[in-house]
């Protein structure tokens, strides 16, 4: 991607740099990993005196809350803001406000609709995650172009950008397979118990299911529980996104077929690096793409 | 028992209780002997209920000493008072509506089985049935309270209180909603309790009851102790003077009023199962009395005319024109007002100020403007409050803080302010002290003289006879007889004749 300089040329003295983090959530398993990676990187910067301080606030997946927190942070006059946006459209105003206030902003994890106005972006493309899932299922069901079987889709909270993109990824892949049918998609609201309940009902309804694609691991694990309890794991392929701890363990144990790793560590560390580069006036990458990785039984050990 | 005669079971000395804005009790005393029926009297707001609530552990006194059975006590809550042997029938009825009669009577002392683990319903219902029978109530103990009439609820409350095996039973206006029969029942019960050496504190505004059943009387006025007398040694005027502080002339000083046009004419009004074929008329300036036993359906007739309840057939002719009343708003707009018998339910918004309570039905009339002129409005409200001598520290206090009788005055004030063409009064003086009664009667005459038509339902025979120009008697939802003022004056035993009709005689 393109590279650029931070607003103003002044290479700031480390003792004056204050980094503010707008977290999306502290309860979402993926976001926890991302937050932790940022935290580690920031703590290190602080301990060697490169930055004065940092501040993390969490929006609890509420757009308005994130907007308010951005206001508060701008009022506090931090040197740079890193944001994991709650919503692509909803958080776009934050980027504008930062621009207005002259505070650089690094967007991490998922994009805002006006991401090009932000100072920098570090993240992955969720459509890609959906495509990886779709391709994996196609491979399992007979290979691309020849895939056959009935697929069910567990969606996240409808309208959420991760849901929209991952859904798009699936639409780009498995939906296009002639031989495969996506029987139904229902929203498990990112929740394990909800996904489990829906899957239980599906298992009653459909005697012949070949695969379940869940838009996050939490739902994938819920579906897995239901499928195992019904004794039908051998017939059904389950894949989901995030590579949270128990999903990886489950892959290792040969239960969950695959999970798609979104590199929280890479995104977290990357975003802090870029933010620090901006604040201290160094050159930085405007767009950093951290790719998704498919984790199966074959390669799971290196991620545990 | 006789050796205990002089000993005091309950002694309350120097009791003081301050409410915000009101000194409800100011250094009062009360001494109740074992096995006596002790009357507590005083005007509305004198502090009777307050003192009794202190005795029953509902309220705590600011100062003063309570001796029970010779020992100083300080009940923290009603449970302690009950344990010690004090039980109370509260002035404001409080049944648990969705529980059965048996469950209400035996609340907190249910018979149990399996070592107290389970409630023995069978036993509870059997015992309750026996008790009900004993007190002349022919009802299953498994009927829910909500299905009872007010009088029946009151009887259940009484039964509950007297079966507590208490040493003292406090009765705060127990007869206010009972009819003659039930009152007799209660008096028998009281005599029985007395026999067993149980003391009774009896609060009532009805002089004749006091004279009949009480041994001694203590009088309060404005939160102060006035004195205690033997009933046998005090006559009625002297007692009234103790309470009111001055002499009262004849209570009913009804002035004859020239009657005007027919204001309301009702023809064949029927509400299926409640009342049938009711026809009558009332003229401007007339006071029309409705007599009958409690439960005869008088209130229901009036509620239908006022739009609170629906009716099934019949015609209402208002000032010569037929009128369909579908809601109270329509009735009020036409100039009908009604003081209902259930003051807590239909009369007051307890958590709001007296200003708001009195103003409520009058807002529409007060002005057609968008905003309320509080100043002018409140000035007018104060005028009416004063007219009815409402006793309150200010009109901005909440209605809940008023004594029962004063609450009734607030309701009267609210409707008088509406200056209706027809005022329906359902038991207007229930729970009201003798002085205030006097004033209300005077006001009724005054309003009648100004051309208002008045319908008065009352279970107090004296009141109906004393105030009405004409009396209609209701029996089981039907009109059964009419008496004119002229007959009233002839001095025959009208009371007996009305009672005969009310019981369904000559049908």
């Amino acid at each position, binding site marked *: 991607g393109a590279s650029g300089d931070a607003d103003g040329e002044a290479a700031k003295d480390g003792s004056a740099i204050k980094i503010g983090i707008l977290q999306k959530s*502290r309860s979402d398993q993926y976001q926890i990993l991302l937050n932790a990676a940022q935290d580690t990187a920031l703590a290190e910067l602080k301990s060697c005196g490169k930055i004065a301080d940092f501040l993390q606030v969490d929006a609890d997946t509420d757009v308005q809350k994130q907007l308010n927190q951005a206001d508060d942070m701008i009022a506090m006059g931090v040197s740079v803001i890193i944001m994991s946006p709650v919503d692509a459209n909803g958080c776009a105003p934050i980027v504008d406000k930062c621009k207005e206030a002259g505070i650089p902003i690094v967007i991490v994890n998922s994009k805002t609709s006006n991401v090009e106005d932000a100072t920098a972006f570090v993240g992955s493309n969720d459509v890609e995650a959906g495509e990886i899932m779709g391709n994996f299922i196609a491979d399992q069901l007979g290979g691309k172009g020849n895939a056959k079987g009935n697929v069910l889709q567990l*969606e996240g909270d409808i309208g959420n950008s991760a849901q929209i993109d991952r859904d798009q990824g699936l639409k780009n892949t498995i939906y296009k397979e002639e031989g495969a049918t996506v029987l139904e998609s229902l929203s498990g609201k990112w929740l394990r118990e909800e996904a489990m309940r829906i899957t239980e009902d*599906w298992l*009653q309804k459909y005697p012949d299911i070949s695969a379940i694609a869940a838009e996050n691991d939490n739902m994938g694990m819920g579906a897995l529980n239901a499928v195992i309890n019904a004794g039908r794991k051998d017939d059904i392929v389950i894949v989901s996104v995030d590579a949270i701890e128990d999903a990886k363990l489950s892959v290792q144990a040969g239960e969950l077929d695959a999970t798609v790793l979104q590199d929280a560590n890479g995104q977290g560390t990357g975003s802090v690096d870029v933010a620090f580069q901006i604040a201290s006036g160094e050159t930085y990458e405007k767009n950093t793409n951290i790719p998704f990785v498919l984790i199966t039984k074959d390669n799971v050990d290196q991620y545990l | 028992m006789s050796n205990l005669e002089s000993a005091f079971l309950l002694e309350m000395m120097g009791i003081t209780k301050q409410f915000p804005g009101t000194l409800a009790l100011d250094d009062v005393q009360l001494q109740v002997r074992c096995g006596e029926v002790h009357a507590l009297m005083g005007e509305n707001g004198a502090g009777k209920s307050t003192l009794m609530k202190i005795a029953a552990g509902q309220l705590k006194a600011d100062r003063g000493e309570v001796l029970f059975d010779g020992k100083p006590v300080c009940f923290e809550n009603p449970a302690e008072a009950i344990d010690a042997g004090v039980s109370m029938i509260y002035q404001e009825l409080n049944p648990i509506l*969705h529980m059965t009669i048996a*469950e209400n009577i035996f609340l907190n002392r249910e018979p149990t089985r399996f070592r107290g683990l389970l409630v023995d319903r069978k036993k509870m219902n059997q015992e309750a049935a026996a008790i009900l029978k004993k007190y002349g109530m022919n009802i299953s103990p*498994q009927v*829910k309270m909500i299905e009872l009439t007010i009088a029946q609820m009151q009887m259940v409350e009484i039964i509950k209180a007297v079966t507590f095996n208490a040493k003292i039973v406090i009765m705060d206006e127990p007869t206010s909603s009972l009819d003659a029969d039930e009152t007799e029942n209660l008096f028998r019960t009281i005599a029985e309790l007395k026999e067993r050496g149980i003391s009774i504190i009896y609060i009532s505004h009805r002089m004749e009851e006091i004279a009949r059943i009480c041994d001694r009387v203590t009088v309060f006025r404005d939160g102060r102790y006035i004195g205690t007398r033997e009933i046998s040694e005090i006559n009625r005027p002297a007692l009234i003077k103790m309470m009111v502080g001055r002499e009262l002339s004849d209570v009913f000083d009804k002035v004859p009023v020239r009657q005007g046009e027919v204001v309301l004419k009702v023809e064949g009004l029927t509400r299926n199962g409640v009342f049938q074929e009711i026809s009558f008329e009332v003229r401007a300036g007339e006071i029309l009395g409705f007599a009958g036993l409690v439960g005869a359906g008088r209130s229901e007739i009036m509620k239908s005319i006022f739009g609170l309840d629906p009716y099934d057939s019949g015609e209402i002719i208002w000032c010569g024109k037929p009128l369909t009343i579908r809601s109270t708003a329509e009735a009020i707009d036409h100039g009908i007002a009604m003081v209902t018998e259930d003051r807590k339910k239909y009369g007051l918004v307890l958590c709001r100020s007296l200003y708001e309570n009195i103003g409520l039905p009058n807002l529409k009339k007060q002005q057609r403007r968008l905003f309320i002129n509080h100043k002018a409005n409140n000035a007018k409200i104060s005028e009416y409050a004063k007219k009815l001598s409402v006793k309150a520290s200010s009109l901005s206090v909440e209605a809940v803080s008023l004594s029962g009788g004063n609450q009734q005055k607030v309701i009267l004030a609210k409707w008088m302010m509406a200056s209706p063409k027809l005022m329906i009064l359902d038991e207007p003086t229930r729970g009201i002290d003798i002085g205030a009664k006097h004033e209300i009667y005077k006001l009724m005459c005054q309003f009648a003289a100004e051309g208002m038509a008045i319908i008065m339902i009352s279970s107090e025979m004296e009141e109906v006879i004393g105030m009405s120009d004409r009396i209609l008697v209701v029996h089981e939802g039907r009109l059964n007889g009419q008496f004119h003022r002229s007959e009233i004056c002839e001095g025959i035993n009208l009371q007996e004749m009305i009672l005969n009709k009310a019981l369904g005689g000559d049908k």
Partner: protein
Amino acid sequence: MSMQAKQTEQSFDLALFTRKYGILMILVFMIVFLLIASPTFRTLQNTINVLNQISINGIIAIGMTFIIISGGIDLSIGSMIAVASVVTGAVLAANPGNVVFAVVLAAVACGLIGLFNGYIISKFDMFPFVVTLGTQLIFRGAAYVISDGKSYVLTSNAFKEIGQGKLLGAIPYSIIVLISIAFIGFVLLSRTKYGQYVYAIGGNLHTAVASGVNVFKIKLLTYMMMGIFTGIAGVILTSRVNAGQPSIGVGYELDAIAAVVIGGSSLNGGIGTIPGTVIGILMIGVINNGMNLMGVSSFYQQIVKGFIILGAVILDIMISRRKSK
């Protein structure tokens, strides 16, 4: 006279039962409709499935019946479940063998939490709605603090059995737990002094006090019991999803309240029965299952559920009104 007629039959309240009849008819109607419309619904397996799914909401709803009859409400259920989940998770993560200890600790923790609710509500005579609106935040926050926001991966197979295991391979344990709790609740509410007091407190607090009922103790007990039941439900849920999560259980109180209200309890207090609540629970379970079987989309599922809640309650009101007039 009609009063006399009722005198003979006992303890089982016919009036209330007929009042409940309306809602029961709706449930029967729904079931019949689904039996015809959905081949899957007819299977025994699906029946077990439904029962299994309602067990968690059911256990909570039983506790909520007591709360609502006593004139209260508890909005902190969802958060309590989260506490139960992370407590179980934390214990099992430290030592997967400690299943009994984990379960007991979760129930005790939620019992104490319920006690806290009850204490504040009765000590300061506050609105349960407000108190639990506040404590709900506190408990959820506590669940996050305990788990540091993370989800515990559970590996104990014994623990997994609680929510996912079946007696003789057919009857899920969770159903057995629900039935036991419903039975205990039924006896407590309709056969013991405690139950009488719960009705009395909700029916008329002042009278209960004036009759010497220890309102403080009864309320405390009721909220504590709600806590314990929620703790049990939380453990089952944790076992079902096989993970201890602080974000779990959001909104569970609303489903439970809906079940209780559909079952004929009055939010004013003083009215309600356990059999009624059981009907309410079944109704919600059948709706959820039925819509999935019929392939109703997520958007419309909410709408249908909303209308069914409204319709059930309105119909119930109309039926009981007609009868009482």
